[in-house]
């Protein structure tokens, strides 16, 4: 099998977050009742005329400047002619040979190395309506008829076309992630791939490494997430490689990516490539972006993700990976800064954001601006871990539960009794239980097998569901193992040696006990039972976290 080099170019369509549409004053609201966000212009009503939205042009210019494009001093709209029922005029107003933004680039990091991906152009166009295919399966090919909603028709769309500089699915993923971060930072789009406000088509071909000529190109459509792009490219590169190895060659065609199977299949051959009969849009006049206007727009440029990452990393002494997460978007920086303002150390803030917060957001499919745990509440949880009142593992669990339950993590800690237990007496009781249940191991330890100690610690931690302070367990266990008869050790002496301030912790344990009981099933020991607690009941109490609160 020969190895080939993949040559990938991406075309990304981005719906701009303007108030009104590209060429009329209808709103861009997502999800409204069908055909209620239209006017004669976006319906393509006979006689209606387009007038461009100035803000949309400025957003495009901002995108171009962020991608280091040259802003063309003279730019035109063209008509792209083809019949399709979701396009009211049967032509799309777009830009052809005189786009507003040309010759830019985007640097992305792949495997620690910097890759520069050229941007051919970024231009302005308008979106189409949406078709609903009515039939047994909802698939276009099997539909009986279709229903069209023009609410989306005319929403400003920017197309960013990359040079064929991308060499792998991973690079494509990095490019899209970075592009999305830039667009988000510019505030020009919602960039929600699942809602279609950011869409991607990919052109892929293979060639022998070291050769300049391009292989036969295939265009892949229906890439609805960055993950889909990556999956589709991985599949397609493999497919083309096999086809070339098998001597079949590649057909120039458009292929459709199927989310369910992870495969691409042929839509149509490019042989019948469509002639769009572009010509200058006679209803519109040229755009001439003079230096003053460009300077005015440039002044609106926020700090871009790359600069932001570098600044955050150096200001807070973070690793590049941590900085990448913290600085992913303006909202994530805001969250980070709110954590710092609540007293969290930068490193801890970064670790939590890149770890638990990121995981929770991914699972919920949400973005950080909608994070259900506020920075202040997360800061309080991190503080509790620092103080030692909650163990790290409990805190993580509390955070994830809080996220799904819509409560604060500390509420969860209180409700579920996840406070760290540093009460020597309580821990000593468990240690005693563990030692008597593992006499053989105790003997081995005493015979000099030091590694058994670790096992015993594990047993204690297991019995306490991870809520015991590891330091206290260590200390108590060593002390107990040093005695001949475990049971002889009076627990009162341990209490006397408690550090100052432990009273409050004890009282928290008390509150844990009562709340645990309230939320436990009726067959569990009541709090009055608990007040007469003996060793065995305590053990049952430790085991309590395995009880499930009803609901």
């Amino acid at each position, binding site marked *: 099998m020969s190895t080939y080099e993949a040559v990938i170019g991406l075309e990304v369509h981005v719906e701009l977050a303007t108030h009104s549409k590209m060429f009329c004053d209808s709103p861009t609201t997502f999800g409204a009742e069908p055909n209620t966000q239209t006017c004669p212009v976006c319906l393509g009503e*006979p006689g209606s005329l*387009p007038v461009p939205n100035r803000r949309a042009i400025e957003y495009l210019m901002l995108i171009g400047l962020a991608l280091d494009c040259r802003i063309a001093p003279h730019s035109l709209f063209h*008509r792209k002619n083809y019949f399709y029922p979701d396009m009211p005029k049967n*032509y799309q107003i777009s830009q052809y040979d005189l786009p507003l933004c040309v010759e830019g680039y985007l640097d992305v990091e792949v495997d620690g190395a910097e890759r520069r991906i050229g941007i051919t152009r970024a231009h302005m166009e308008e979106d189409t309506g949406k078709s609903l295919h009515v039939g047994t399966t909802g698939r276009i090919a099997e539909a009986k008829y279709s229903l069209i909603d023009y609410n989306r028709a005319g929403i400003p769309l920017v197309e960013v076309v990359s040079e064929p500089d991308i060499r792998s699915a991973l690079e494509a993923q990095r490019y899209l992630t970075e592009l999305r971060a830039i667009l988000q930072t510019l505030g020009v789009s919602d960039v929600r791939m699942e809602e279609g406000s950011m869409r991607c088509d990919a052109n892929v071909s293979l060639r022998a490494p070291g050769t300049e000529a391009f292989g036969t190109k295939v265009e892949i459509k229906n890439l609805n997430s960055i993950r889909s792009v990556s999956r589709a490219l991985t599949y397609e590169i493999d497919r083309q490689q096999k086809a070339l190895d098998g001597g079949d060659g590649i057909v120039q065609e458009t292929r459709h990516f199927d989310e369910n199977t992870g495969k691409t299949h042929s839509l149509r051959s490019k042989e019948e490539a469509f002639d769009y009969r572009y010509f200058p849009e006679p209803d519109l006049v040229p755009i001439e972006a003079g230096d003053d206007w460009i300077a005015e727009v440039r002044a609106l440029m926020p700090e871009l993700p790359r600069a932001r990452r570098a600044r955050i990393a150096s200001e807070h002494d973070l690793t590049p990976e941590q900085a990448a997460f913290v600085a992913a978007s303006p909202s994530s920086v805001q969250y980070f800064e709110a954590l710092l303002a609540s007293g969290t150390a930068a490193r801890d803030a970064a670790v939590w954001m890149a770890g638990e917060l990121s995981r929770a957001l991914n699972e919920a499919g949400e973005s950080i601006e909608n994070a259900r745990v506020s920075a202040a509440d997360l800061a309080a949880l991190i503080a509790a871990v620092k103080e030692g009142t909650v163990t790290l593992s409990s805190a993580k669990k509390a955070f994830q539960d809080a996220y799904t339950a819509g409560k604060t993590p500390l509420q969860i800690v209180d409700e579920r009794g996840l406070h760290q237990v540093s009460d020597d007496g309580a821990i000593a009781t468990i240690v005693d239980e563990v030692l008597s249940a593992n006499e053989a191991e105790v003997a081995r330890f005493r015979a000099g097998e030091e590694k058994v100690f670790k096992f015993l610690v594990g047993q204690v931690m297991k019995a306490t569901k991870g809520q015991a302070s590891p330091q206290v367990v260590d200390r108590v266990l060593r002390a107990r193992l040093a005695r001949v008869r475990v049971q002889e050790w009076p627990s009162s002496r341990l209490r006397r040696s408690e550090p100052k301030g432990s009273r409050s912790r004890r009282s928290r344990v008390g509150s844990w006990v009562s709340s645990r009981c309230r939320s436990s099933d009726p067959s569990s020991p009541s709090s009055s039972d608990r007040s007469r607690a003996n060793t065995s009941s305590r053990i049952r109490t430790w085991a309590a976290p395995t009880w499930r609160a009803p609901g």
Partner: protein
Amino acid sequence: MTEVWELSAAELGRMIARKETSARDVVDVHLSRIEALDDSVNAFLTLTPDLARATADDVDQRIAAGEQLGPLAGVPLALKDILCVDGVRTTAGSKILEGYVPPYDSTVVRKLRAAGVPIVGKANLDEFAMGSSTENSAYGPSRNPWDLARVPGGSSGGSAAAVSAGFAPLGIGTDTGGSIRQPASLCGVVGVKPTYGLVSRYGLLAFASSLDQVGPFARTVEDAALLLEAIAGHDRMDATSIPEEVPPYVKGLESGVKGLRIGVVSDWVEGEGVQPGVTERVRAAIESLSSLGAEIGEISLPSFRYALSAYYLIAPAECSSNLARYDGVRWGLRAPEAKDVVEMNVRSRTAGFGDEVKRRIMLGTYALSAGYYDAYYGKAQQVRTLVIRDFEKAYERFDVLLGPTSPTTAFKIGEKADDPLAMYLNDVFTIPSNLAGAAAISLPCGLAEDGLPVGLQLLGPPMSEGLLFKVAYAYEQARGPVDAPPLWGRS
């Protein structure tokens, strides 16, 4: 005694304002004349008596309440059926728009409503304004009030015929390659093709967007000037609308032509195919202007011989795209029982469009095709540049240019219907102004040897309407009243 329908718009406006008559009566008189005679003229596709009477009643009430209205308040108008009126059937002379009722007003209609102008009906036209005779209307041709066997010209033939026949003192047409001026010439009325961008195109069903312009018909220069004042002006709904104040055209009408330099386009006046009677009447008009103190010179415009070819690439190219929206999806004719949407599109368009429209769509589609664009559309756009340059050079020497509007007087219905090229030659003198986006006016300059009206065309640079009106008015006054068409003898 002069009938109400014979009066000028200016006169009717004055009488209504002075309550010597009511807008309602004026509208009713015109409506009954239409009812009596339009069967033979076929100037209208749709009559809008309710709309006209409602506007008239509103005007009368406001005048009764002491309101000061515009000079055309209550004066009836025939609107070319290619401009949208909210709630009124609009056909563009095509079967493809069968049943189409636009949900909005064109800007011109909005302005007419604001001026209190009652719209009595929607006037016939060549399908989508493509033609020079109204014979391309899917609803039958209009007839020329001078001779009902002849065409009124086109494409705005219905509006021109209506004004000529005394159905309304005012008309609105559109001019893409001569569609106001040529029918004005053939019907013996005044027609103005304003500067591109002077009148909003919003709500005008597009034929060729870079050439289309809305303009007035009237029987006098003053009336045409009044109507242009009412409909012109910047419109934020049209990106190609000129953002300037409209000067008061009527105010400057009487300032005369003394010392004005008028350039006679020599190859037009005595060019090949120009009817001798046309040449003779235009020469007489030149004499008249000369005696009024204008300086007359001659000029030849070499690029103009390519203008017709360039026009017949640019206009079809734009139309092939503009007419794509008539596909049976959202409005108009839909072919029944198609197995899929493509078949529905094809069958609806095949059934809905007439031959001339199909011819131009195909021509335009071809001209824009990859591999042909540079040779056809691109080249045509370069010719356009040359035409503009020739005009600019001409206006260094002259204030206005002069020639006939049309090489011939009105021809017989059917005479050129099967010969598109002969038909296209009707527009040979009018097309250059459209390519240049410039202003031009056609006004009657007497009858030719065949007893039919001849049109005198005055051409000026963009935004020269005031100047053109002034010259036209001076000539009109010197010329004196023109003969009325035979139809005026009937009621």
